[in-house]
């Protein structure tokens, strides 16, 4: 075993032992990947056990590389871990699985055990500074703000709206809806001069240098225009800005990060956005993992949904949703698209049991797989901001 592996195992071993010594696997049945594959290698407990095994010289990074692809980094395992549930972090032994997966994937890259599809994906990111979300059609700086054509959004200012990758090039209707809601409320904001990917997905797939490079670029761009606050409508960006960036930049990271769904909810509550157009739909809500499970944000989207007139809302409680995921996160759809498809199919089937016509999400990355599954199951999938925009009378 190489020095890097040994160093890695020693760094993470106490955290891993917290899980290994328990071994009770409460995480297993909430893990979206495990629910599909039923393969014990893909359990969060196996991830931790592999670090203990690595320290003992029983496995090396090559042995476990494929296992560590099987994670959406949804964070359900951490919540369901009895240690986290019952004792918090009192002994600093909270089981940290998302961090472990990211770290192991970084080790995979460092040791030449990277996965082929992730490698290609991130090569394209390095080239175009946005992820290749349009497949063979290249993305580029020249088109990163095409979604905003006709909306007259200025560049720069104290408040910056951050829109990258999936939301900038693929799910643009969601982005337009969000920007128009802010405009309707008279909320001033600008775009970046040059917007690169947040770098979060690259970090999730183990490409740390690339992630840092993109983060550094974005922070410099914000500073150059005097930005003080960044609005992140995409939960993945929100995670990157509130968890990755503070680690990269430490105390020099001065920005206020505003979550899009909380901002729109506040604007509606303050009466700055009037929801006057009834939407006659029967809906349920899919908690995006990076809001509910990772950040504990579950009230704001529900308040917003309930504020839309005409909707019949059949909610599923947020704890039950710990075991739901779209399968769209953590790079899984790039390497294991068939697993993402099955996770989304199951999520949509759960929604269909409630006899709704629409599944609402609040995350652009979840909406591609959910929409595909919804299409097959004849169930509509809509973004929350698009629905709110309809109710606010905004013409797309």
């Amino acid at each position, binding site marked *: 075993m190489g020095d890097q592996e040994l160093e890695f195992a020693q760094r993470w071993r*106490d955290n891993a*032992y*917290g899980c*290994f*010594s*328990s*071994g*009770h*696997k*409460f*995480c*297993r*049945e909430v893990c979206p990947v495990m629910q599909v594959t*039923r*393969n*014990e*290698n893909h*359990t969060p*407990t*196996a991830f931790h*056990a*592999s670090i*203990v*095994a690595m320290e*003992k010289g*029983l*496995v090396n990074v090559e*042995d*476990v590389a494929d*296992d560590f692809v099987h994670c959406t980094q949804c964070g359900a395992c951490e919540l*369901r871990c*009895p*240690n986290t*549930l*019952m*004792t*918090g972090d*009192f*002994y600093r*032994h909270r089981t940290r699985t998302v961090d472990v997966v990211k770290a192991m994937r970084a080790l995979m890259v460092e040791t030449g055990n990277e996965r082929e599809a992730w490698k290609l994906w991130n090569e394209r990111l390095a080239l175009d500074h946005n992820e290749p979300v349009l497949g063979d059609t290249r993305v580029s700086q020249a088109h990163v703000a095409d979604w905003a054509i006709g909306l007259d959004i200025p560049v720069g200012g104290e408040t910056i709206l951050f829109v990258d990758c999936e939301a900038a090039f693929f799910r643009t209707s969601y982005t337009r809806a969000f920007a128009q809601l802010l405009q309707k409320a008279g909320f001033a904001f600008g775009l970046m001069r040059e917007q690169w990917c947040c770098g979060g997905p690259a970090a999730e797939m183990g490409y740390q240098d690339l992630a840092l490079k993109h983060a550094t670029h974005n922070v410099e761009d914000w500073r150059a225009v005097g930005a003080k606050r960044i609005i992140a409508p995409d939960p993945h960006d929100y995670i990157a800005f509130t968890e990755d960036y503070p680690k990269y930049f430490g105390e020099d990271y001065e920005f206020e990060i505003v979550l899009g769904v909380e901002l729109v909810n506040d604007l509606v509550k303050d009466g700055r956005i009037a929801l006057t157009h009834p939407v006659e739909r029967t809906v349920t809500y899919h908690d995006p993992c990076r809001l509910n499970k990772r950040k504990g944000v579950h009230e704001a989207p529900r308040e917003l949904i309930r504020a839309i007139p005409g909707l019949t809302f059949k909610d599923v409680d947020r704890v039950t949703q710990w075991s739901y995921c779209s399968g769209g996160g953590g790079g899984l759809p790039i390497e294991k698209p068939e697993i993402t498809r099955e996770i989304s199919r199951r999520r949509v089937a759960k929604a269909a049991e409630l006899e709704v016509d629409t599944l609402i999400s609040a995350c652009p990355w979840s909406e591609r797989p959910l929409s595909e599954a919804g299409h097959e199951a004849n169930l509509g999938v809509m973004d929350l901001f698009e629905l709110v925009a309809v109710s606010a009378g905004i013409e797309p």
Partner: protein
Amino acid sequence: MRGVAFKSAVDDHVLDELRAIIGDDARVRPDQSSRAFRSRVPAPFPVHRWADHFPDVVILPKTAVEVSEVVKLANRHRIPIVPRAGGTGLSDGAVPLRGGIMIDCKLMNQIHEIDLVDRTVTVGPGINMLKLNEELRKYGVIYPDDPASYPCSLVGGRIGTGGWSLLGARYGHTRDLVISMEVVLPTGEIVEISEGGGRKLRKSSTGLTLKQLFTGHQGTLGITTQATLELVPRPETEFAAFFAFDDYMKAYETVGVLTRCGLATLAGVVLFDEWKIAYLRRDDEAYIPQPESVKAVVAVAMYGRRLEVEPASREIMRLGRSRGGRYLGDEISAGDWASRHDRYATPLHGRDLDGQAVIMSWHCEDAALNYSVLPQVREEWHAIVARYRERYGIFDDWGMFAYTSGPHKPWADYLVEIDVGIWEQKLDDETWAAWVSCKREIAEVSLRYGGSITACHGATREGDAELVPQELGSAWPVVKAIKRALDPNNVMNPGKQSLDEAYE
């Protein structure tokens, strides 16, 4: 190795045969990581000898026929077979002692039939109770098996280990809740095991009753590939009450009073001793602090229809207070009972001799004991653990609890458990041997007081497996004859429960 000869390993030829049977290379896994992660369960583990427990190959079958063909192959080549479901067992049932082929049944997790008329559900062994009940709740019924590992253990493992249910006093345990099953025998035949002949019959007196034989055998007699389970009405309400005592014996007497009350909705009565309270007090930040005067706690729970439980709860309150018990309030009672599954895995830390918090594994030694001997056993068990703790410093005493374990007869025998923290990271050959010895001493006490080594976790591994012949006494030759008859080549989970003696 006694009595039998094994092929040393699964070679390439055997692997080819396995791949031909399964027809899907992704479900035949000889790779290092697949083997490593399926070589342990939450029981304390000699981490320094981890590789000794690796299976040679892991199979993920989807059908009974696949299981059968793999077992036939193993029997033909004299290769050990180890069945594994959730791998949450607290003895070593799902851990290979001699390598071989591991049959991991997690992909067999289908619900085959829900029969709301005759009140049964038929499932694959890879399904989890919580997941099953999520499906059943829409029909107003549940499968009431409720181990502490409810969120993650699987039906197949419950059957193989003869698991115990936290609601057992009300609804029975796995052995009472499995109506029939399909089993692959050690020679590969697929047989139906039930009461008499009917798959959904709960009681028959035709011929010999085989069902119990195939419950709790720890994978030594076969592999369950399908099970038909009992359904009960989803309880309309639950009631839990926790009572604090300043004296263990008063709490003990209260347990006796509560369990003899005759209320049919009584689901369980639990007695925590002062070591347990002290442990929770010092090491569990989530535990709602109790005054120093609290030396024992009794928890009681009831399940059923509102019209039964609500009036009965008033009687429970009266009885709980009748020997000086102090009701701990609705918040603790409802909250602690609701977290009964999570709390089981909470203690990931204990104290070394210097009082420092360190990561320890939780382990519990359990026994089935009569009510009358609980106080004496408690004293002897604590004394044993104290000796090992004092000498080695990597063990910690996390207290004891006793739990009604007789289905429908809660006054009868008790599941009694002492929880021991073990600093697994520090284990070496000497301290591992010390642990095994400690375990054996605890089991010996149980036998001396007319109890059983275990009520639910299985006398499977070194430390207590060697006492199985002593406990079974004059019945031991019968057990050996059965094992030999069903498994002529000792391929089914060899080395467990001292059953190798059947081949001497």
